[in-house]
């Protein structure tokens, strides 16, 4: 309505474009984070829902030793079980001609003819099984692409000690393996681990499972979803005679757990990170608008004298903030959309979806925009409001001189004496402009918190890798044997070429119980002086295996509510299912799985054997030709169920994590930089504008530009470093919250804080403060002192 005032606004915006740009970028980053993460969250959630529906994703998995199909009918009658399907599934060793090392895989049976099935597959290439051959296979798409496998080719799998030739009829994906992990790893590696779907009749034949199954997948009645625990417990009881290894609800299924964790995490971060940025932006904007309103005190008085209403004057200043909000919102939304497309692409790399698309979510745009405007208004309110309190006659008088007098610190004479006059000046200024200083401290706090969280995240990953893969599990190759075997199996492996060292393992799966708490998990038996798997505590000390009793991982001990010295009962999944009592001897720290260790001799005795082996860990000769010979032998080795190349696994994991860390740290430092830089530039420039005459007077007195700059630098260092130091514990808290939120039975992040992290965060805070100060110094250097001296009171 008031056009001339709008022109005034436009010109003022042009004049303070530098500062506004700084604030706009803080808002834009906040909105961008929100839009990007929220969009990615919605994209992933929608893709997950669609995919699970398309594949008819199961609600539970029950793994058993072997159950006759006829016995399963009773399962359908359990209250809460809507439908179920038996499957045969076994680990397999994949022998590809052009690949020297044996690869790992999982074989899963599917109906011979296409029919609606749970955990169905979506074909990507080729077709479903035909009637032409028994030995047809559908390979999971990622593995097929990574290894150049196409329909029409023959591949070889080692199944039940026999080398089987299978004809590839198609490639497929399934929601069950959206995040496909091989054993013992955390990131998918499609080159080394595949899923192979075979005909049910073929599986029955190869594994001697005629009319039987070793896995049941099922769906729960939606209306009884709340009682799923009871339903699953009944199913477990029913199948107990057939040796239940595990009962896995969808919630705990590995792929689903990783995917759901990622989605939930995104949702949480989409709320937290933007809030930090927008809060900082609001605070910084508040300082700027307050300054602007104060600077225009006389203009406001004049406008009021001319008959402008409070509302019109208020709206005028609000528009200033709003324009920043609009600019930040639009810019942030656009960048956010671009970033969400990028994030969605990264997710495509880790998660296999049929149709993960980056979509435009208008609601998210609108909300991002609205939040940005609210933040801008909140930031402008105080400044605009303060000017309305003035009567026009009062507003026309120059502002009374700023508060003088001693600050509190000056009363501590001894301390005060320690400061040079330059520092005293800075301290006084900081304490006299409390709102502005508080805003700067707050911004620095948030910036530092962000840096600390990020650095801790990286440190935590590094520590995790080191703890889990270099100190606890140190083998090069792990072999899983078919069932438990005697000492001669170990001797046989020791004879293989290139094996420098081999250690036996005995895995015994079963149910742990302690009072009302129970859990299915496996005990790993190790040699007391094992070198390839070494239990540690969080301080990195080796935990010696007791001659009797168990070493529980902390997470498992928490689940069972046990402490060292407590007794737990353990019912192994064995034909006899004799319940044993064992003592919890020690608690070990572990960040993966729910490991339980015991002395292999003790465990063997518990199982009623003298010495039993179910797996072998190898340390190998690294020379390529020796390794090639070993791999060749391993491919032929009977009695081996799975072989995992841990060296490659660790390499892949390290590479993936480091790659992501690099991007992560880069983005984080830029984001924190935006906060630090924006805040420091803003508060210093406002400070400088308010003290133009003072600065000019100092120049007239003979101070150099640099010594005047130093006065301002001292102030920004004071507020920034205070904020940064206060931000350190906040960052620690954020990391702790993140680690707690993400922790699950599969993987947990340690919360590690080393002095280096504090150092880096504070170091960056100094760097950003100096960078921002360069702008202020430039302004001081180019300031027209004579003009500044003429400024009328």
């Amino acid at each position, binding site marked *: *309505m*008031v*056009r*001339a*005032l709008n*022109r*005034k606004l436009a*010109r*003022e915006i042009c*004049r303070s474009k530098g500062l506004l740009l700084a604030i706009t970028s803080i808002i834009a980053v906040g909105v961008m984070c929100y839009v990007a993460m929220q969009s990615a969250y919605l994209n992933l959630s929608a893709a997950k829902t669609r995919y699970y529906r398309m594949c008819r994703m199961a609600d539970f998995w029950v793994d058993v030793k072997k159950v006759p199909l006829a016995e399963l009918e009773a399962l359908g009658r359990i209250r809460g079980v809507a439908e179920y399907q038996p499957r045969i599934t076994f680990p397999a060793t994949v022998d590809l001609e052009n690949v020297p090392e044996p690869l790992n895989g999982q074989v899963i049976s599917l109906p011979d003819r296409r029919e609606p099935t749970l955990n169905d597959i979506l074909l990507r290439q080729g077709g479903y099984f035909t009637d032409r051959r028994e030995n047809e296979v559908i390979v999971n798409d990622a593995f097929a692409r990574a290894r150049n496998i196409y329909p029409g080719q023959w591949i070889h799998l080692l199944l039940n000690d026999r080398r089987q030739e299978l004809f590839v009829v198609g490639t497929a994906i399934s929601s069950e393996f959206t995040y496909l992990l091989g054993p013992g790893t955390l990131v998918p590696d499609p080159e080394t681990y595949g899923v192979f779907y075979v005909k049910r009749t073929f599986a029955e034949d190869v594994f001697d499972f005629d009319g039987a199954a070793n896995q049941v997948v099922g769906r729960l009645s939606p209306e009884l979803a709340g009682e799923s625990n009871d339903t699953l417990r009944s199913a477990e009881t029913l199948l107990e005679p057939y040796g239940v290894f595990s009962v896995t609800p969808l919630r705990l299924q590995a792929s689903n757990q990783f995917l759901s964790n990622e989605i939930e995490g995104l949702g949480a971060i989409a709320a937290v990170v933007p809030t930090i940025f927008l809060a900082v932006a609001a605070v910084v904007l508040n300082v700027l608008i307050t300054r602007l309103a104060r600077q225009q005190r*006389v*203009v406001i*008085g*004049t*406008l*009021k*004298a*001319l*008959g*402008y*209403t*409070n509302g*019109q004057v208020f709206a005028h200043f609000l528009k200033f903030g709003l324009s920043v909000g609009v600019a930040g919102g639009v810019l942030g939304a656009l960048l956010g959309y671009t970033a969400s497309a990028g994030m969605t692409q990264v997710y495509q790399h880790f998660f296999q979806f049929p149709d993960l698309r980056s979509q435009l979510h208008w609601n998210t745009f609108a909300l991002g925009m609205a939040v940005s405007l609210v933040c801008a208004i909140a930031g402008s309110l105080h400044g605009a409001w303060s000017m309305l309190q003035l*009567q*026009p*006659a*009062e507003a*026309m008088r120059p502002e009374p001189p700023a508060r003088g007098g001693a600050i509190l610190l000056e009363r501590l004479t001894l301390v005060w004496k320690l400061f040079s006059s330059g520092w005293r000046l800075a301290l006084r200024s900081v304490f006299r402009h409390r709102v502005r200083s508080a805003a700067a401290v707050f911004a620095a706090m948030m910036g530092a918190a962000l840096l600390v969280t990020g650095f801790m995240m990286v440190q935590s990953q590094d520590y995790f890798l080191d703890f889990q893969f270099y100190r606890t599990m140190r083998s090069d190759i792990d072999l899983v044997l078919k069932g438990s075997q005697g000492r001669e199996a170990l001797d046989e492996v020791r004879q293989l070429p290139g094996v420098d060292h081999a250690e036996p393992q005995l895995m015994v799966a079963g149910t742990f119980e302690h009072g009302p708490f129970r859990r299915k998990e496996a005990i790993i038996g190790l040699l007391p002086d094992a070198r390839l798997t070494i239990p540690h505590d969080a301080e990195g000390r080796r935990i010696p295996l007791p001659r009797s009793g168990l070493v529980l991982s902390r997470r498992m001990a928490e689940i069972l509510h046990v402490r060292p010295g407590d007794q737990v009962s353990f019912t192994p999944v064995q034909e006899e299912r004799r319940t044993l009592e064992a003592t919890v001897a020690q608690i070990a720290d572990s960040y993966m799985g729910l490991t339980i260790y015991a002395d292999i001799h003790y465990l063997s005795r518990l199982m009623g054997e003298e010495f039993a082996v179910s797996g072998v860990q190898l340390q190998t000769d690294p020379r390529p030709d020796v390794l090639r010979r070993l791999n060749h032998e391993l491919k032929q080795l009977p009695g081996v169920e799975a072989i995992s190349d841990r060296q490659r696994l660790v390499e892949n994991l390290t590479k993936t994590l480091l790659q992501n860390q690099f991007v992560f740290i880069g983005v984080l430092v830029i984001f924190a930089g935006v906060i630090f830089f924006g805040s420091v530039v803003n508060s210093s420039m406002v400070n400088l504008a308010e003290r133009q005459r003072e600065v000019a007077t100092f120049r007239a007195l003979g101070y150099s530009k640099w010594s005047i700059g130093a006065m301002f630098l001292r102030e920004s260092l004071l507020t920034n470093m205070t904020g940064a130091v206060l931000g350190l514990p906040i960052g620690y808290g954020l990391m702790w919250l993140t680690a707690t939120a993400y922790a699950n039975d599969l993987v947990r992040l340690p919360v590690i804080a080393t002095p280096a992290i504090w150092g880096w965060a504070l170091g960056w805070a100094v760097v950003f403060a100096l960078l921002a100060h360069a702008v202020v110094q430039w302004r001081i250097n180019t300031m027209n002192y004579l003009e500044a001296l003429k400024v*009328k009171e």
Partner: protein
Amino acid sequence: MTDEFAAASAAKNGQPLLRMDGVGRTFQMGEVAVVVLTNITLDIRRGEFLALVGPSGSGKTTILNLIGGMDRPSVGSVLYKGRNLADASDRELTRYRREEVGFVFQFYNLVPNLTARENILVSTEIASAPRDADEVLRLVGLEDRAEHFPAQLSGGEQQRVSIARAVAKNPELLLCDEPTGALDFKTGKRVLRLLVDLNRQLGKTVVVITHNAALAEVADRVVHLRSGEISSMEENQNPVAPEEVVW
């Protein structure tokens, strides 16, 4: 022109446009109450040129602020056309300032980043019966400087823009706070001439405050202030032309 002059003279003898009755104003400065005005009773007649003269600190600006609806008295009443401004709400005072009063400030108070013309628009855009901005610019002789920013104008020119801005709303009452205070002698006289013309030709009631007694010679009536009180008041039977004033 003669008719206009006659109309103005007739109006001068009629009802007062504004009446201050027993007005006092006290400011609270921390714990000290500073009495700025005591017991001011003054009529401002329609169409007159009134000068408030006194040394600095005598309460001139406070009176002007009270007349202009920028402040409220601590005691007493300020009646404008029978309406007491002392009881008026903020909204009513805003309306009053918008429709009835034009301010001219000592330091012009132009909005620095608006051109001369835009500074006038700031005022016309909110008034109910404004004059044309360009016409007012012509009236103050600044039609050539319409697109100049305040920083590109001399002090006298800025003050003329300020006067134009006040007149553009077409107010009844023109209040001028030391309008020549920041100007040199020659420029000051031109500005004074402009104010006199507005009074004589357009019939505007003009109140000028000044510490310069010589300026008062152009006024119809001079009120002398000292320490917040009216010390004397005199009718000026033969106001001199601004060109003849010497200070």
